[in-house]
């Protein structure tokens, strides 16, 4: 601890100019923009940061082990090998890509907070649905999308037969029509027992590609829940958490990017 204390205090003993130089060097090495976040919200949602923190530790551990597979349990991983803190429920597609390839090959990973949420629920005619819209930050320079996930948390609810199977489907809203239903494109679908709890991860890669290239086409996604008898159920009624739910379980989107060509190191 004494050696660590000496190391930790050494920065404070630098002069003001040296501290500024050190700060500029660190910003350049980490590739951070020049100034801290202008006005952090008081109580931001914490689901995305928790997920990303898991990802950070997995990626850093892999960096230290020089290319070994990203650690974390395989069974509960999301489609794209997210770290175990956010193990997703079993998905329709039996084939889960090798653990973490999308994560370990990504140069940038961005998580987006859910801005707008609308729904048609029990008070309105069926079919019930829930819509989510995200504020996608501009594409990082010279990088392309390799994968994107929409993550939503399902809790246990009373009055559900635990072994009943639910079909949850996610669509991209491609065009809105004033007096008619919007044009939708199916992105992903999952079936799971009603008695299951945990994070659900839906593949929305194709939609996020379009949104990032044409931001105006970002009209969000729409989620439906149906029983095996094709009866529509409300998302909230089966326990899907929305923006008014606990902060650590609110829905979010995460997108993985890869540098299009070998990134040249900025001259320092």
């Amino acid at each position, binding site marked *: 601890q004494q050696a660590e204390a000496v190391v930790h205090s050494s920065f404070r003993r630098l002069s003001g100019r040296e501290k500024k130089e050190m*700060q500029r060097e660190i910003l350049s090495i980490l590739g951070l923009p020049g100034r801290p976040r*202008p006005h*952090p919200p008081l109580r931001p949602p914490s689901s995305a940061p928790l997920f990303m923190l898991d990802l950070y530790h997995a990626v850093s551990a892999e960096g230290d082990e020089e290319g070994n597979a990203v650690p974390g349990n395989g069974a509960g991983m999301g489609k794209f090998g997210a770290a175990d803190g956010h193990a997703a429920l079993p998905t329709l597609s039996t084939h889960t890509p090798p653990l973490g390839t999308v994560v370990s090959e990504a140069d940038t990973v961005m998580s987006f907070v859910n801005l707008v949420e609308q729904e048609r629920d029990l008070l309105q005619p069926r079919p019930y649905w829930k819509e989510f819209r995200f504020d996608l930050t501009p594409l990082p320079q010279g990088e392309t999308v390799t994968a994107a996930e929409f993550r939503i948390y399902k809790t246990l609810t009373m009055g559900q037969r635990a072994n009943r199977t639910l079909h949850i489907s996610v669509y991209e809203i491609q065009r809105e029509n004033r007096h008619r239903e919007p044009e939708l494109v199916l992105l992903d679908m999952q079936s799971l027992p009603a008695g299951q709890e945990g994070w659900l991860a839906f593949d929305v890669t194709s939609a996020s590609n379009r949104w990032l290239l044409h931001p105006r086409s970002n009209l969000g996604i729409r989620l439906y829940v149906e029983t095996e008898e094709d009866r529509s159920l409300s998302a909230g009624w089966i326990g899907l958490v929305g923006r008014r739910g606990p902060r650590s379980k609110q829905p979010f989107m995460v997108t993985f990017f890869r540098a299009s060509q070998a990134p040249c190191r900025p001259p320092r």
Partner: protein
Amino acid sequence: ALKPHPRKKKPKYDLPVPSIHGEVSQPHANSGRQACKKHELYVSFSDLGWKDWVLAPTGYSAYYCDGECLYPLGSCMNATNHALIQQVVHLLKPDEVPKACCAPTKLSPISVLFYDDNNNVILKKHRNMVVKTCGC
């Protein structure tokens, strides 16, 4: 490949001439100076006021070499520049000049997790960006 002629003018950087048995004379060896060693300067991000901007890591460790090299080329250079020049001289005369002890032996990746201005969380990974290990 030519053997340095003993009567020749001493080179500008007073390159120590290997003796007959091939050991290299150490002008500073017994002057009690500290041998070259890797040091760490740790910068805590809370010291910089970045605590609610950068989620991880919590700080940055800058590694540098300091001290007297076993094969000093000249006192006017700092350890890192000295290492680079010695590395070049070693490549030119591998039999006479040993490898520099402070040359970086590997470049490591570094990752950072931070908030952008829209409160989205971004994880950035830079490959081959930092020196954590050297020959010291």
